[in-house]
């Protein structure tokens, strides 16, 4: 499977971009060219140069250092928001699958339908208005919308697996429902969950960027790509580079996770490629 994956162009490109973003975020934990939050008004709005490779913003902060710290931020959002969706959603979905047709199953699935009816960005804005703006609340607001996505997928995939003979054999051998889900169902639906996780990861990064652009996501002085884009608009004519780099960073990270997801889908489920 690894051999097939490494011959798949989207997978390789997606993996390379994702590793680059991960690497930059990891590096930013120890080192950035300058202090990402240090303001130097005397050096404000400097175009890219040898000292500040990607220039400085309206407060004289180094754009490259801010972008690097922003990568950490974006990944944190992705990891926690998808983590919330995966842990709660998969548990709910598998539980619904074991009780197919029951009241609990019906209730969980209708709740998922209902969440889908609510426009995510709008609800996130509402949630952030009540919980107050900030990174943690933004992650929560984004994470909540991942729950029904994973619940539906986990339920559908679990039902398919549970119709197989070896599940009946395990039941006959006296294994508990939890044991069957843990030992037989989960390993068999792992692939589809990983693929969806990488897609949701990309969506979470986009959502956080959008919320931060609106000023209700990550709060200053913590650098965030979306917020940098918002700030850049005031100086668009003067310092266009301020708008170009953060947006390119968002697009690159999202592209990386999307390609990785596409590649993984083809590798884990070769039939999907023919479709």
């Amino acid at each position, binding site marked *: 499977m690894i051999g097939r994956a490494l011959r798949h162009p989207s997978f390789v490109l997606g993996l390379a971009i994702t590793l680059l973003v991960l690497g930059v975020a990891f590096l930013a934990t120890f080192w950035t060219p300058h202090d990402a939050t240090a303001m130097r008004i005397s050096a404000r709005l400097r175009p890219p140069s040898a000292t500040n490779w990607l220039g400085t913003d309206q407060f004289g902060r180094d754009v490259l250092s801010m972008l690097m710290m922003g990568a950490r931020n974006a990944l944190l959002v992705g990891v926690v928001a998808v983590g919330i969706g995966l842990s709660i959603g998969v548990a709910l979905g598998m539980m619904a699958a074991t009780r197919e047709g029951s009241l609990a199953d019906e209730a969980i699935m209708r709740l998922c339908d209902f969440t889908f009816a609510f426009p995510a960005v709008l609800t996130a804005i509402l949630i952030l208005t009540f919980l107050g703006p900030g990174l943690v609340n933004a992650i929560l607001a984004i994470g909540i919308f991942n729950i029904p996505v994973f619940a539906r997928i986990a339920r559908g995939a679990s039902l398919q697996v549970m119709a197989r003979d070896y599940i009946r054999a395990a039941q006959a051998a006296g294994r508990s429902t939890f044991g069957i889900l843990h030992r037989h169902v989960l390993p068999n639906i792992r692939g589809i969950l990983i693929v969806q996780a990488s897609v949701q990861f990309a969506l979470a990064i986009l959502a956080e960027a959008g919320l931060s652009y609106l000023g209700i996501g990550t709060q200053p002085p913590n650098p965030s790509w979306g917020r940098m884009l918002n700030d850049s608009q005031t100086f668009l004519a003067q310092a266009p580079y301020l708008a*170009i780099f953060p947006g390119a960073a968002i*697009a690159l990270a999202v592209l990386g996770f999307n390609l990785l997801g596409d590649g993984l889908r083809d590798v884990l489920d070769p039939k999907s490629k023919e479709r």
Partner: protein
Amino acid sequence: MFAFLARRLATLLTTLAVAAILIFAVTEILPGDPAAAMLGLTATPETVAALRAELGLDAPAFVRFFGWIAGFFTGDLGISYAYRVPVAGLIAERLPVTLPLAIMASLFASILGITLGALAASRANSLVDSALMAGAQVGLAIPNFWFGILMVLLFSITLGWFPAGGFPGWETGFFKGLQALFLPAIALALPQGAVLARLTRTAVLEALGEDFVRTARAKGLTRGQTLRRHVLRNAMVPVITMLALQFSFLITGTIIIENVFALPGLGRLIFQSVGGHDLVTVKSLVMIYVGAVILVNALVDIAYGLIDPRLRFGRGVGR
């Protein structure tokens, strides 16, 4: 047929009712005292009491709830706290910006997505196909608000072809209005167009493999004729469904895009009202947005059932 429609209608009404209760609870019950929440920490007890009286908060919650719902039919949605004018008037004033914007964006997305998707499918596995699909992948990754900013940079600041933001109003001329909405509509359309292009390609490829295509070619139709008359028509069902379902992303996209281009539409109003704690306006606006999404999804479901009778007995689209 009748049973199917009745069931869908019942689901639609239930979903709308639950949504309304939830929105009412979030804006009027969860904050404790909405008047205090709107006025902030510095408010004196007298001003809070005055606002409570103005909003009629002393009435029981269920009376206020039904009064609010009735307002959607009578056109009385209360007075906006931030703007001091009727909410219904505010909405009527902003709708002529958001509605044309959403329609233009849908139009651009469908033209872009369907044309490029069909082109990619008709040249499947060629260089053109690969380039188009790579383009769609990039289109999906680019945040629409960044695309908007880049277009302002190029077409407004550098070339001066379009205004950088704002809306002059339709009374200054139809063309001027269209010009102000053009870049925002393109920005909104980009990700939707990319999704549609990918879907159209898949749907066309699937239809190309069907027997009727071989029959059409065998009876002497050219490749182009077969594509136009038989393939595209069959491939359009999932594409149109997706277009309708994308509506949800599109209208929430207006919240961000109207902020990028400083357009005085519903999206910007909702954001400003949330920021200004104008719960009176927020409540009705959110209901309108959510209601529109629920309605469109239900219509798609019903249309699907009418087109394909097998779906009438299932649980609907995508389940």
